[in-house]
């Protein structure tokens, strides 16, 4: 078991209503799990709890059997948050500098940049990159945190539809080579179905529904036209509408 949440509740300081109540989920190693649900169902808060940004006061969270603290998972927020004064490669190396680790080197970063087609931008500043490129660099930076578990909070939400499609293609292609566990927040149902093994649907009344996406891997972006995908989509839409 990679990520395990047991009866987790969280209330923001100064508020009375919990944003997360009695949430439990088990995520296997190497699984790609999407969290969907309306705004205010606590999706981002959940990731921040797992990332150790907030203290988990009720319930148990464990990552690979240990209570996670800052630095134990890779967290990628919606905004790319690349440091504007650092070059692409220095942004990717940031987590290693911060953690004083040397298990990955600049050569590894260059290797990865080659793989994702951004090697000629390695010394560019973030402002010279397009939105999709910045997101890819931010993803590499998250990978370079060296954690097996990656938490991605709507990483593609700010991109236009075409770039988003490219990013799906890109993520699916590198996903094959990774053995990371991914927890992924999105509002885009097609995105969730296409990428995930499992979808957790968070309801406003704190109930959680689990939907297993039984599509073959490796997947490709063309699969969004498959009737199965559309069926999944309809089912989930109905579940959300019936709240």
């Amino acid at each position, binding site marked *: 078991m990679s990520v395990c949440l047991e009866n987790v509740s969280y209330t923001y300081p100064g508020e009375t209503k919990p944003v997360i109540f009695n949430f439990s989920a088990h995520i296997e190693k190497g699984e790609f799990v999407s969290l969907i649900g309306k705004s205010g169902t606590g999706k981002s808060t959940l990731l921040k709890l797992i990332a*150790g940004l907030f203290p988990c006061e009720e319930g148990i969270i464990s990552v690979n059997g240990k209570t996670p603290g*800052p630095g134990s998972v890779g*967290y990628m927020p919606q*905004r790319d948050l690349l440091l504007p004064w650092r070059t692409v490669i220095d942004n990717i190396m940031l987590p290693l500098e*911060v953690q004083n680790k040397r298990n990955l080197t600049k050569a590894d970063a260059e290797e990865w940049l080659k793989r994702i087609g951004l090697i000629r931008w390695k010394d560019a500043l973030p402002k010279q990159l397009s939105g999709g490129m910045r997101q890819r660099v931010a993803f590499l930076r998250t990978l370079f*945190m060296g954690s097996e578990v990656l938490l991605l909070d709507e990483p593609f939400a700010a991109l236009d539809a075409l770039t988003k499609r490219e990013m799906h293609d890109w993520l699916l292609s590198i996903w094959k080579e990774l053995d990371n566990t991914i927890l992924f927040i999105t509002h885009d149902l097609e995105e969730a179905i296409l990428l995930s093994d499992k979808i957790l649907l968070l309801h406003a009344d704190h109930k959680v529904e689990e939907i297993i996406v039984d599509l073959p891997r490796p997947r490709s972006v063309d699969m969004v036209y498959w009737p199965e995908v559309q069926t999944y989509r309809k089912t989930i839409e109905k579940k959300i509408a019936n709240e």
Partner: protein
Amino acid sequence: MSKLKRLLADYGAFGLLVIIVVSLWEWAARTGKVPSFIIPAPSKVLEMLYEQKQALLWVHTPATLKEALIGFAFSFAGGITIALAMHFSKLVEKMLYPFVLFSQTIPVIALSPIFVLWFGYDIWSKIAVTVLVAFFPIVISCYDGFKNIDQDYVDLLRSMGASKWKIFIKVEVPFAMPSLFSGIKMAVIYSIVGATIGEWLGASEGLGYYTRRMSGNLNAEGVFAAVALLTVLGLVLFSIATFIEKSFLKWNRKS
């Protein structure tokens, strides 16, 4: 050529206005429309500058520059120290912030005679006045620079397991820089103003002292010559600060 064109495009309109104003001014002064002891002709001011170049350039300008620079250095060191203390400690922030604001409501000129009593007639009273006017922009710009840092970046580094020190060095300091530099640019100009005011109170050299002596003699050319030099001094310091800012903060340039 293209550089010249850009210079013209950027400063052409300004240059034209200056030429028109100076010409009108010269004409008004020469034809006696304005008495020369009120506003002297620009050509007379230049003449005065030339005649007095020895004293103005080698005695008074260096004296004022020295006071301004030492005052700026104290303001910079003190301002940053206070801003950092307020950034790191809520208690210090609560204690000092009102003081910093109060210090700006003090009419400096009213207080400065006391500075002469405290610090004497030598350079220290001028430096004290300079610090009183120049440290405020440094404190506020540095403090605001830290205050307005995007928390998302801090959270990102925290999620990486960064220590407070690492967050400070890797994120907070660089993000506070543009704001700090705005403060520095203001402070260098204020330093010149502060040094000049300081000299009015009693001094034996400096451009402020010189303007006072000249106006006592109803020598408007002399006053204007010194004011022109003070302006140039301010511009030079401002340009140096801008140059350092640009080479430090390449990432922040709008392109």
